[in-house]
């Protein structure tokens, strides 16, 4: 089943700057894309390539100006937005833009109260999801006083609480230290193992290469390539998209091997060394 089907999607908006040359920004240009359900998908592209604008279409924050977007079988339009937002959870890049309540508890409960859950169910759910993101001790804290990593976890909890089928995270790893990044990756893997489709955007090509089942490369509002992480091997294409090829791809580019993570790379090197000896 397809989680996302996009056909000839275009989107533009008026620039807010003072430079007349930048009046209209053509953020998306005739995008065609289909994404399988149940996969881990990474969108890569430079700043301004259109990733976030595209993401906003997935839960109706943007409505298509031309073309069609279908998510989990629902055609994105004004009338189905509330239903769509129950199924598509969106985690924003800057958690300060998402954490709007005065306590963590209330913020995680925010979405559930919008959908008229009872306070009893809410209490159970809030504690459960905070436990999943290892933030239960923060339940009565003010979001303002949390560290960046804590804010990110609470923001994710606030979206997870709504039990989405498709999870979209905009630059989830930005500003995180390696330890927290590892925890977050483990959480996303677990969510995917529970059947959720997980879509992220990232600048870290190496992370996307090792983590994703599918990769989408965007540049200047268009999709440059889409497929398995092997699509990241094309150095010229990556450069044109203002991206770098993954380190492992660079190291092994003249070899017949294409390890996708350090464990696979180690295994390849060990076999090569065994072969030599």
């Amino acid at each position, binding site marked *: 089943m397809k989680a996302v089907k996009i056909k000839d999607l275009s989107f533009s908006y008026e620039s807010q700057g003072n430079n007349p040359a930048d009046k209209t920004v053509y953020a998306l240009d005739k995008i065609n894309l289909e994404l399988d359900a149940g996969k881990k998908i990474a969108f890569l592209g430079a700043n301004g390539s259109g990733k976030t604008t595209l993401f906003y279409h997935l839960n109706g924050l943007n409505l298509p100006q031309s073309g069609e977007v279908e998510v989990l079988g629902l055609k994105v339009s004004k009338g189905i937005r509330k239903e769509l*937002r129950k199924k598509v959870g969106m985690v924003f890049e800057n958690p*300060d*833009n998402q954490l*709007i*309540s005065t*306590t963590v508890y209330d913020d995680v409960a925010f979405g559930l109260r919008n*959908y008229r859950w009872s306070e009893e169910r809410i209490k159970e759910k809030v504690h459960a999801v905070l436990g999943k993101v290892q933030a239960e001790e923060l339940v009565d804290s003010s979001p303002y006083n949390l560290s960046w990593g804590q804010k990110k976890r609470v923001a994710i909890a606030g979206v997870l609480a*709504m039990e989405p089928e498709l999870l979209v995270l905009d630059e989830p790893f930005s500003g995180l230290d390696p330890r927290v990044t590892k925890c977050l990756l483990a959480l996303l893997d677990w969510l995917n193992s529970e059947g959720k489709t997980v879509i992220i955007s990232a600048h870290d090509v190496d992370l996307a290469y090792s983590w994703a089942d599918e990769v989408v490369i965007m540049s200047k509002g268009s999709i440059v390539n889409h497929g398995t992480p092997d699509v990241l091997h094309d150095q010229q294409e990556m450069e044109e998209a203002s991206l770098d090829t993954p380190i492992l791809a660079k190291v092994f580019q003249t070899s017949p091997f294409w390890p996708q993570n350090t464990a696979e790379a180690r295994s390849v090197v060990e076999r090569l060394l065994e072969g030599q000896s």
Partner: protein
Amino acid sequence: MMGSNGHMTGDAWRPDLYSNLSSWGHAWDTRAKIIALVVFVFGVVTLNSIYPLMLSFVLVLLAVVSVKIPLFFLVKRVKWVLPFLIFIFIGLILGRGLGNIHDSLYFGGTVSLKALTSLTATLLVLGTQSLEKFLKGLAQIRLPRVIVSVLFLSYRYIFMFREIVQDTYRALLSRGFSNGFSIQTLRVYGEITGALFIKALDRSEIVLKSMEARGFDGSIPFHSSSERPLDAKDMIKTLGVLMVTGLLLWLDRGVI
């Protein structure tokens, strides 16, 4: 702007510093407390005679002491009103001459007592639970939906804006800015103001998107009932305040 500005630093925005103590005031339900406060303050400002006013001030001071809020904290938080009250006295005495000094002092005294009693009573209510709980209490006494939503959302972001301004100021100081009275300083203040408002507007667009993404439909939902229902003790405390207010009004009307 910032370094010597007590309004922007540390605990300036925390009247609830002593909210984690334990007393009859801390145990009083927030909604009931707010209602009692409003009735009491409205009653006090309608008093005309100095003796009931003195009594009301003494009672409130005793109440503050009994809920264990330190008096130095009280003074720190209400002292902003003192220059204004002093000006009232000066204006009255200089304006009306020494011939009317008794009336001027009496009038100035009644105004001052009303102001100080009200401020003290307000601090008693604000200081005996967390600010977050107080705001929720306000939401639960049926203020208009728009006001409550704006109140909660703006409260959430004032701390971030304060930090942005403090960071900006540090950056200015690092490049030799000095905070004296000059057109240059006013220009800097103006530009910081403009920049902060643009940041606020930009952020608000994304905040709206993030709220809509979680089903926001126009009002920020709150817990529909307080953590515990009102009990007999809350009712007794609230009725007690109402009765004291009534007594003060009765004394006031009977005293020449």
